[in-house]
């Protein structure tokens, strides 16, 4: 192993790898889920992603360990197995979480390894980090799928545990860097942001970011409910109905009516 391949030995903590993911970025992708998050969004469908610690979760009667420490090289052993599918579909590697930026060295090394394989790279993140951290990653990142959940800092803190100021500022700086394709993603959560006004406010902000052309509206779902139970935690959302297709369509119409952004429902 030569000196400049040292990044392959960087270690990090993940909780899952998902292959044949086709709804997160272009083409057929492999998603690496990094463990640890700065927020505690009530609707989070991966509660096992939140703590940076390795923990136990009960799944279908058996106890599963969530979280393992691996090197970039180990991850790439799996990622490279799907090379034929990436080449055919334009897909590649996606980092998700958790918030990948909480493990900046690991995230950077993973994306770098992805680029050296020649595959498309993407990262789902809400941009919760110093911009100096993000700047290190941008050269290796084709698409930044950035979550913006709300424009109101107080409501953001109430539902996610933190204000959104840093993230909005980072969104602007990422866009201005021109180094990556920035796509804004909005989880549409009943009672939180599912009004035309709130979604439009995010869309207007997104439209002003240089180079941003797309916004994705992701309807809330309760697939994660069982995991809360498995972790012995209450489900913060309680019984909330998912947004109806008609509702989502109305929100999409609001976005396309008020901005020039391409707006799609789902990833």
């Amino acid at each position: 192993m030569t000196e400049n391949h040292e990044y392959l030995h960087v270690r990090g903590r993940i909780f899952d790898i998902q292959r044949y993911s086709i709804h997160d970025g272009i083409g057929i992708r492999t998603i690496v889920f990094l463990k640890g998050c700065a927020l505690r969004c009530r609707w989070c469908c991966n509660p096992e992603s939140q703590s940076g610690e390795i923990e136990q979760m009960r799944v279908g009667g058996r106890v599963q360990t969530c979280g393992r420490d691996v090197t970039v090289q180990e991850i790439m052993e799996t990622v490279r197995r799907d090379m034929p599918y990436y080449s055919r579909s334009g897909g590649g590697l996606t980092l998700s979480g958790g918030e990948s930026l909480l493990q900046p060295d690991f995230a950077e090394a993973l994306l770098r390894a992805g680029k050296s394989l020649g595959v498309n790279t993407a990262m789902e993140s809400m941009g919760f980090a110093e911009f100096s951290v993000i700047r290190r990653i941008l050269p290796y990142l084709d698409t930044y799928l950035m979550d913006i959940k709300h424009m109101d800092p107080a409501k953001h803190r109430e539902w996610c545990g933190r204000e959104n100021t840093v993230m909005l500022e980072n969104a602007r700086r990422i866009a201005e860097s021109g180094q990556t394709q920035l796509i804004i993603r909005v989880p549409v959560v009943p009672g939180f942001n599912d009004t035309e006004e709130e979604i439009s406010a995010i869309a207007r902000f997104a439209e002003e970011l240089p180079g941003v052309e797309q916004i994705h509206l992701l309807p809330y779902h309760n697939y994660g409910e069982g995991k809360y139970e498995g972790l012995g935690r209450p489900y913060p959302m309680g019984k909330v109905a998912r947004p109806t297709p008609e509702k989502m369509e109305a929100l999409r119409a609001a976005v396309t009516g008020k901005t020039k952004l391409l707006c799609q429902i789902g990833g």
Partner: protein
Amino acid sequence: MMRTMFDPTPVAKSERITRLVADLFRKMPEIEAARAELITESYQNSEGLPETTRKALAFRHILAGLPIVIRPGELIVGSTTIAPRGCQTYPEFSYEWLEAEFDTVEHRAADPFYISEETKQRLRRANGYWKGRTTSELARSYMSPETLRAMAHNVFTPGNYYYNGVGHVNVHYDRVINEGLTGIMAQTVQALKRVRAGDPHYGEKRRFLEAVLISCQAVIDYAHRYAALAREEAGREQDPGRRQELLDIAERCTWVPEHPARTFAEGLQAFWFVQQTIQIESSGHSISPGRFDQYMYPLYAQDTAAGRLTREQAQELIDCVWVKLNDLNKCRDAVSAEGFAGYSLFQNLIVGGQTPDGRDATNDLSFMCLDATKHVFLPQPSISIRVWNGSAKELLMRAAEVTRTGIGFPAYYNDEIIIPSMENRGIPIEDARNYCIIGCVEPHVPGKEDGWHDAAFFNMCRPLEMVFTNGMDHGELAGIQTGALSTLTTYEAFKEAYRQQMAYHIELLVNADNAIDRAHAERSPLPFESCLIDDCIERGIPLQQGGAHYNFTGPQGFGIANVADSLYAIRTLVYEQRRFTLEELARAMQMNYGQGFDETTATETAEAVAKALTEAGTEVTPEIIGGVIRQVLTMELPEAEKKRYEEIRQMIIDLPHYGNDVDEVDEIAREAAYFYTKPLPQYRNPRGGIFQAGLYPVSANVPLGKQTGATPDGRLAHTPVADGVSPTSGYDLHGPTASCNSVARLDHADASNGTLFNMKIHPTAMTTERDLEDFVSLVRGFFDQKGMHMQFNVVDRQTLLDAQTHPERYAGLVVRVAGYSALFTTLSKSLQDDIIRRTEQGFGR
């Protein structure tokens, strides 16, 4: 790259097609007696004549006497039975099973048929003649005692051709369309002239060629019967539109298949008469139309260019042919019916791919054939698509749209591995590039080959069981003695024992197939089918006696996943980690891993006890048998022992399995497949060709699984064996790409008779246009790694479970079974369960 220009614009389905499809399903399929009576009559009057002559005379007698019917609204005519989807019987191949099943065939789980009391009587009368005269009786007399024993122990079953005609060919539809049967007859006359009086085979050749002439004329006369009927019905018809249609039908049937087709509609009618009458001549199934989009294209192009034919008319005519392909039916014995469940005739029709000179073959008809399948939404034809590096993306996307409907079609085939695999068997590149698919998944040279593609099912798990019993099975030596378990001290020794058990049974399989092959050569030469395949006429030899240009025998093995997982478990847990011994594993398997025994085990045990008692001279009473059965069914192991076996099974289940992209396991799978594929090509068949392996089970993995005890991969006794080259149901947990990578790691080129890979995809992964593009990329990514075949069930588990509970609501639900699709509700419960179990591959969170 040069490309044929094509127009992919879809044409809407016509009102007529909706009606024709509805009419097909008004009644339960029925068995009719006419053919059996006619062939028997003819044979009674032709005693002593050469077999080829007798066949031709019988064919003529049947076609002259079979009731004919034009169904309301049909444009393409020719029906084998009075009632739609009915079937005739073929006592010359075998009949005992049907008589034995007369009273159960209507109510059996798989493919029931109605049969009237009158039909039963008529069939009994006709069948009586055939005692001692069938192909199956002759075949049996040609088999070695060891072969019969291996068959009795269900190591393999050659049932398909043992009890039926062979079929499994693609004939020169193009020649009948372009030259007419008169063209074929002219060639035959020329060949007759060339047979010299001094030729040592003068007599057989002359008789065969004369039989060809009789048979061709019989088909022409049959078409003329339809022409007369259409004219007669036109005379009575009140609706002027329909009257004109009937007159057009009459004109077409007067002209084709006798003469070269002048229009696209005539071409289709000529095609249909060939397709139908081959299936009257013999009961062989998988009469595959093959490259329909290629040989029908010139007439389509000519008519559309001349303004005689609109795309709407062309589509409706094609749709009509698709309906006719579903009008034919076949009644099989109860066991085979489970193995081929779903009333399928496996008439495989393939679009796309390359021309013989290596260019992309996509044309308008490639799209229209896929659309026809969407329109009729029925199990026939088994539609397939050839994919190569230069395939038109539009065609693959259209195929993906059909896949999305959940009908299980099309099956996808990879030119980039199939063509080299055929060349490796000595087929020149132009013929290899022109391949079509027969039946389920079998690559075949159109119009030139007798591939005997479905020659047997070979259960690769049974020889593995015999390693554990030193060749013993159900109380007698069925395999060979590969040594007591204590002598298998290394993994290599164990593997070698398995290889030897396999090699032994493969030779017996060859023996069975060759015996049946000779029986067909002697008792069932088929002059009409033969004359449409090169070089039967030129050589003056029927297909069944080796007249084809290419000859193969292709028996298929299945259970790769079980054997791979078993060998991996044994290597890891017995030899490397020493978690348990072979003896302990053997006992755990014998005790069904502590999970109790089912009735199959109870009956088998009772039979073994009865045999032992009889041999010892003790009388066997019903009380003894009942006692044994009760004892087995209620047997309780000591708690500690039961727990240990469950523990052993859990250790095995916790290991990595084939289908998860784990190199060590997949390498073993590759080696396991070689144990089957490598020995076969060393054997020859009586037609002058070699054996070549296939790796696909049709749906036999379910019934044959019932005859297999617990296996070292943790599989419980009598549950289904893995299908084709697919991973074991429910064991592939890392998504479709991981499954694909595992399957691609097998050497598909060595299984040149075809491999079969089933995948189930959840509908939510095939919703948007982008999903379809990713789906196409999945197929292409698998094919880039030299995978051979892929097929999909796109239906969610919930829907299938609901269909089991409320079959009445899902009468039209078509699912992919194996190399074909079938109506889900017509399948047996156990096969339905197996389909539901196949892992549903979804997408990321």
